[in-house]
Structure formats: C-alpha cells, structure tokens
C-alpha cells in the first residue's frame, strides 16, 4: 500500500435481496488527488460510496483508512474517520441558517456562539475560495449555495476525504466552474476528493484518476492524462451485449402526440425541461435515454397532465388522421381522460404514484376505470376478473388478489401496474424505468409486453437506464441532457458510445434530429 493512500476498499460486496449492487470491488484513493468514479446509472457507484459514509453495511470486504482496517456502522463513524459525503439529496434543515447546519450535531459548549462559527466558516470559505453567507437560511438558497453549505459542513468537521455524488447535476456551467476551482484548492491542501459522475468532459477536466464501475463490478482505474473520452465511454458502457429482444419493424406509424416547446420548472425553480419538441408515433417504441434527473419525469408527467408547463408549451393529441387535434397542456388528468385520450402511464414511483399501496390487486385494478358505470357503486366484477387474469398471465406472486400490493415484492408490484395499464388498451403507453429493481425474468416479461403493445399499434414511450436494452428494444432513441434534447437517433444504427456522449453533452451544432418527420 502506498504511503499516501487515504482509503482503500478491498473486495467489497453488497447485495440487496437478489440484486448484487457491488460485487467484489477493490479501489483506492490517495491524498491530494481527485478521483472520478464513473459509471452508468445503476452501476453501483452510489451504493459503494454509501458504504463509506455509513449508510449501508457491506456484506463482504474490508475498508482501510490510513492503512488501518476500520468498521463503519453509521454516518457518525464515518465522520470520525474524516470521511464526508455530499449526497445528491442534501441533508440540510431548511429553516436553519448555513452556520446552524454546519455545526449541527457537533460537540461543544452549551451556548451556541453563532458569531464565532460564522467567523470560522468565513475563514474556511476564504481559504478554499467559496462564497457563502453563514447567516442565510437554507430555504432562501439556490441549489449551488446549498451544495456549498454541505461541502463546508464536511470541511468544518475536519473531513480529509470528500465524496461528492453527482455534484454538477444541479449546477449551471458557471457554478460548476467555481466548484471545480474549489475542489482543486482542496486537493492542493492534501485532501482526497472523490466525485461520482457520468459527465465525461468533467471527468477529463477535473480528475487525476478515473475508476470505472459497470453493472456493480469494478472495471479499472486509469490516469486521466493517459485516457480519452472515447476510451472511458467504452469502459463505462462495455461491449455491446446481445439481449435477444425480439424487435419487429414498426408498422403504420403516424404521429399521435406532438410535443412542442415544452418547458417545465421544478421545485428548485430550475428548468427541468427546456424547450423540448418531438413527436410520439404509433406502432413504434420511442426510447428515452439520459442521466437520471435530466427531465424524464417531468416529460412524462407533463403529457399525463400532472405538471404545469410554462410559456409556449404545447402538447397536441391527434386521435386519428385528419381529426380534430386536442391541446393537452393546461388540462387535468380527468379532463384529458374525458377527451378520450387513452393514455397509460407507468410512473417511476410505483407505490407513491400509480398504485394504492394499502389496497389489493382488485382495488388497484379499479383505479383507472372505477368511474365507469352509472350509479354510485363501484363495479367489482370486472376488476376482480382482471386481477385474476393478470395474476395468472403475468405470474404475479401474491397470496391473494386482496393482499395489499405494498406487501408484494418490487417485481410483482410492477407487474400489477404494467398489467393494469396495458389492460386499458391504451393508444399511448408511457413507462419510466419499468424494469428498475426487477430480476432478469421479470424484466424480459416486461420487454415482451412492450413489444406486443407496439405490434398492436400502440405508441410506446420507454424511459430507460440500461443502454443495451434501449438499443435493442427501441426504434428511435431520444436522448435528454439537462432538460434539453441532445439528439434523436435511430436505435438500429446508433452505438452505445454515441448515446453515451449525447447523454453527457449537447452537440455544439444543433443537429436536425434524424428521426423527426
């Protein structure tokens, strides 16, 4: 082991049920360097770092800090070892000031001397080149300021190893630049910095070395100066794996939904979607690729009537060729339904939106159609029949069709949701991360369902994270980057590398999307 090794991970394995999130990973980070941890969504980066920060306990493997073997059982242990992690979702108390958040949980005198803390914070910010008002409340801050508070919080606690989970995902280019200069200052101060990212240009710009993970496994660590973006992409996405998903040629394609200039603002007041225009067509699967949080959620929810798009946004629905066109923006889900728009939507958060956790399969089958039929009573025969059919057809493992779905495993929950949405015989089917957390067999069952729907002439939108699947399942792939469309490519001719690059950067010249009519 080298003298200046800050942390060394040996053979770390972490399983969640049957899913292996980290398999036998060994990795080291040195003092005075910036290490990039690169990998696609679901490659196990965050899990690995959560082990270091005391959120998860590894099933196997050893951790060495400064050459000594340690056990990290809680975030507290992690602090004690000088490890500080800045999560994607900031752990800050909204109504506290920056200074209050920074000293939260630290030992010291009974009286809070916030003035002294503010001075210390100011000293730290000056040293590394941050800008921060210690007396500002968190809820008044921009995302980048909140991130600054998190970083200072770690430095204030004497962190020598700083882990940042996708720090630039929420920042503007100017803010990113500032952050990088701060990180460089910290590196020069002898601290070890790990940034989790999948933005290649940033990796090249900031890091000294790059460690690559793929599907829970460690690929390699290379020196940044000796590699290139293309080489890293290949390490990250790997050789194309053949999945044998049956893909037919699209038939009877025609535009059913025309999205124009769609713009949405998220909770933080940032543009989650920025002037997005494209068409959704019947009889094909439109794959949507992109780093998590690039606007996928807002895109689907806008179409479903669950967001409030702003400005010139327009979503036009054309039920049949040369029929009256309906504008969906500004309509509630109910109004959209009343227009006869047959829209199925499998959202990302299955139990929080889409299913009723406390109800059994029957109750969940009713969710879409309970209003049908006259009178005040809900009709239960058809949903019961449907529940039985689905249980049979999709092999849903549940003690009974009355067992609350929140008690089922993730895969079965998803089958209930997908099954219900398909059963309404939609014209448009939108799915977000439809196979996340599912085992291989269930995933294939879902792929087959989507392919069947496409055969039937349904317009299918598939938001996915596994590029191999996107390439084999979709007809076109729309790539989102920071809420903008960075490209629409033909899934049959494109490569993983091309999509990987589009995910991380928008081409300089606005290319005409080739799949567009």
């Amino acid at each position, binding site marked *: 082991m080298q003298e200046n090794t800050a942390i060394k991970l040996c053979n770390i394995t972490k399983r969640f049920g049957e899913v292996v999130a980290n398999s036998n990973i060994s990795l080291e980070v040195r003092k005075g360097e910036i290490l990039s941890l690169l990998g696609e969504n679901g490659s*196990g980066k965050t899990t690995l770092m959560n082990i270091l920060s005391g959120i998860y306990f590894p*099933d196997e493997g050893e951790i060495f800090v400064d050459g000594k073997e340690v*056990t990290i059982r809680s975030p507290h242990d992690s602090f004690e070892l000088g490890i500080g992690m800045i999560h994607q979702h900031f752990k800050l108390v909204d109504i506290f000031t920056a200074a209050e958040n920074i000293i939260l949980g630290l030992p010291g005198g009974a009286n809070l001397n916030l003035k002294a803390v503010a001075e210390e914070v100011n000293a730290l910010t000056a040293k590394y080149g941050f800008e921060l008002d210690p007396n500002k409340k968190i809820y008044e801050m921009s995302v980048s300021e909140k991130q600054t508070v998190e970083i200072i919080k770690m430095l204030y606690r004497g962190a020598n190893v700083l882990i940042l989970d996708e720090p630039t995902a929420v920042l503007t280019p100017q803010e990113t630049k500032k952050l990088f200069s701060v990180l460089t200052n910290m590196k020069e101060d002898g601290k070890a910095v790990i940034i989790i990212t999948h933005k290649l240009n940033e990796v090249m710009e900031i890091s000294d070395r790059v460690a690559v993970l793929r599907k829970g496994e460690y690929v390699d660590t290379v020196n940044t100066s000796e590699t290139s973006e293309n080489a890293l992409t290949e390490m990250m996405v790997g050789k194309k794996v053949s999945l044998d998903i049956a893909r037919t040629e699209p038939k009877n394609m025609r535009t059913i939904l025309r999205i124009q200039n769609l713009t949405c603002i998220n909770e933080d007041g940032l543009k989650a979607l920025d002037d997005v225009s494209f068409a959704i067509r019947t009889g094909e699967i439109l794959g949507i690729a992109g780093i998590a949080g690039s606007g996928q959620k807002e895109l689907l929810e806008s179409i479903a009537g669950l967001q409030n798009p702003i400005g010139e946004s327009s979503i036009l629905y054309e039920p049949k060729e040369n029929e009256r066109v309906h504008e969906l923006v500004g309509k509630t889900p109910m109004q959209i339904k009343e227009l006869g728009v047959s829209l199925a939507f499998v959202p990302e958060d299955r139990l929080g*939106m889409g299913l009723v956790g406390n109800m059994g399969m029957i109750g969940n089958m009713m969710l879409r159609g309970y209003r049908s039929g006259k009178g005040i009573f*809900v009709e*239960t025969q058809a949903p019961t029949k449907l529940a039985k059919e689905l249980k049979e057809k999709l092999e849903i493992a549940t003690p009974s069709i009355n067992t609350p779905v929140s008690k089922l495993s993730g895969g079965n929950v998803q089958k209930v949701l997908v099954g219900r949405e398909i059963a309404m015989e939609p014209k448009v089917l939108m799915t977000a991360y439809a196979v996340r957390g599912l085992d291989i067999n269930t995933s294939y069952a879902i792929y087959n369902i989507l392919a069947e729907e496409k055969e039937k002439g349904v317009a299918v939108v598939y938001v996915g994270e596994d590029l191999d699947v996107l390439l084999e399942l979709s007809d076109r792939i729309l790539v989102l980057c920071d809420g903008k469309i960075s490209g629409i490519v033909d899934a049959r001719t494109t490569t993983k590398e091309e999509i990987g690059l589009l995910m991380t950067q928008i081409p300089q010249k606005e290319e005409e999307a080739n799949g567009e009519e």
Partner: protein
Amino acid sequence: MAKNNELSGKREPLVRIVRRTDAGRIQSWGIRIAAVLVALVICAVLIYALVKMNPLEVYKAMFFGAFGTTRKLWITLRDTAMLLCIGIGLAPAFRMKFWNIGAEGQILVGGVATAVCMIYLKGLPEILLFACMLFLSSLAGAVWGLIPAWFKAHFGTNETLFTLMMNYVAISITSFCVSKWENPYGSNSVGIINPGTKEGWLPDLFGQQYLINVLMVAALVVLMYIYMERTKHGYELAVVGDSENTARYAGIDVKKVIIRTMLLSGALCGFSGFLAVSGASHTISTGTAGGRGFTAIIVAWLAKFNTFTMALIALLLVFLDKGAVEIASKFNLNDYASQIITGILLFFILGSEFFINYRLVFAHKEKHAVQAEGKEA
C-alpha cells in the same frame, strides 16, 4: 483522525427493528387479542389491589353492571350505539387521513340544533319536527366539519389543531344556549325538554325506549360499510388517504374529496348529537358529548375503519365503562375507575400494533434479514 480504535473489529447492532409484511390476519388478531387479555389481567390485579376482591368476581360484577338487568342492557346498547355512531362518522375522515378530532364539537352543535327544534318548533306535526331536527343537526355538524376541511384543502391548514379548537367554540355556543334556555332559572341547566308532551323525543319501539337508536345506528353500520367499501366516493377517499399523488394520477379532485368527506363526517357526528339529545338525555349541556368524540377516534382507529369491528370495540369500551361504574358503586369508589381501565386497555392495544408491523432481529440472525433494505437511490 486515528482515534478510532473502537471502530475496528466488526460489531453490528445487537437488536435491529425490521418492518414485517408477513403477519396475516389470524396472526394480527392473535396479537391484538393477547394484548387485550394482558390488559385485562393487569386491570384485574389493579382492582384486586384496590378492593381485595377476587378478580373473577370482579369481572362477573362488571358483567352484571353492563348486562345484568334489562334496563342495564338497554342502556349499554344505547351508549354503544351512540359511541359507534360517532365512530362511523369519523371513519371516512380518518381513512382519508384527515385527523378530525373535532367530533366533540360536531356532536354538540348537532345537539344544540336538535334542542333548538325541540324548543322553538314544538307544535309542528311530529314528522315535520323530526325532519327538521334530523336535517338541522346534520347540517350543523356538517358546517362544523366543513370549515376546517375547506382550509385544509386550500391552504393545508393543520386539521388536527383546527378541529380541536372548533370543539371549544362549540362548547361556548352550547353554554350560551344552556344559559339562555335555563330551566329552572339559576340551575345552570336546561332540564328535560318538553317533559310533558315528549315532543321531539324519539318514540318507543315495541315498548323499548332505545330500540330505535340501536336500529338506526345498526343501519348506519351497514350503510357506511357499503359507502366505504363499495361506492365510488368511498374508493376515492381511500385513494386520497393512501397517496395524494396516486389520486391526482387517477384524475381524482383531491380538494373536492376532502371537503365532501368532511361534510359527511361532520353530518354524521351532528346526527350523533341528535341521537344524544332526542334519543337519550332529552336535554342539552356541555357534557352532551362527554369525551365520546375522542373515544370514538380510538374506536375507529383500532377497528381499521371496518364498521363491524367498530361495533365490537365500542361494545367492549362501553362494557368496561358500565362494569367499572358497577364495581365503583359496589365498593364505594368513584366512577372514574372506568377511565383508568379504558386507558390501560387502549395503551396495550396501541402498543400491540408494533408487533404486527415490525419484527425484532437479533444480531446472529442478521444474515437472514437483509432483504428488507433499500436499493440504490
């Protein structure tokens, strides 16, 4: 930084709490019944310590207190009906996760409205009088429910605290009316209303004074069960209670459902006030609700909003109450003993839910219980 000697070596927490999902219906009820039994044993010990009476004799005496004579039986049934009626009113609100702890107030305004009719509208044909009483008492309760619901739906105003405050506004209104209608003067009570003519009193049925109360509430048990389990409204409020996002996803107008459900909940509590005044006491006072608005919350909650289970729990609580009063009078103790027993019983039932929802995992079993953890965010 190397002050971490205690961090080396593998030590995992000794006991961990893990959510369990496998407790079936039989197991769940087994745990609950065990809790009730333990509570009853503890109460028995307590009573023994106080009165040195054989615990079995104690429960026998309690049984006599609740069901010993026809009159006692009917009073027990009447009070059960009243408590159950309030619980039925609360059930839809609580299933929607709207914390209506304002039943006390809703009962009182319903009771006041009933008394208003009995006092000012006497002389009306009986049918018309009852129609007015029913309508106005339900309306008063509904308004009392609507006010906090409207603010909850539009501004997210905390309904727990709002409905609680509404109780005391209702109490003041009741006090106001009581002193207005005082009879005889200076007694600070209304006395029995229309004692001679019995106008506005719920009539006897088959010679039984309280049979009509029991029948009406029994009908409500069935109707509310159907409303919650079989109607579109009932379905919508259950979805809202589970997840507002899912409700929006399904195109449900969440605000409308909140307001509609609270109108119903308030109206039924107002109707309970009608039962209390017209069907039982024939008078009105600030004690007309008598804390039953709070007890009914517990009835509805413990029964998981199943109206038939609620009937059982209401009966159990009224039985304990009557039984304890019997023991108290027998041994020259005071009536409040029943509240103590009720409290102990409820504490045990509340605590028992933990063992239905969670499981304790000890360190050496750790490896078998790792499935319960989350996935990468």
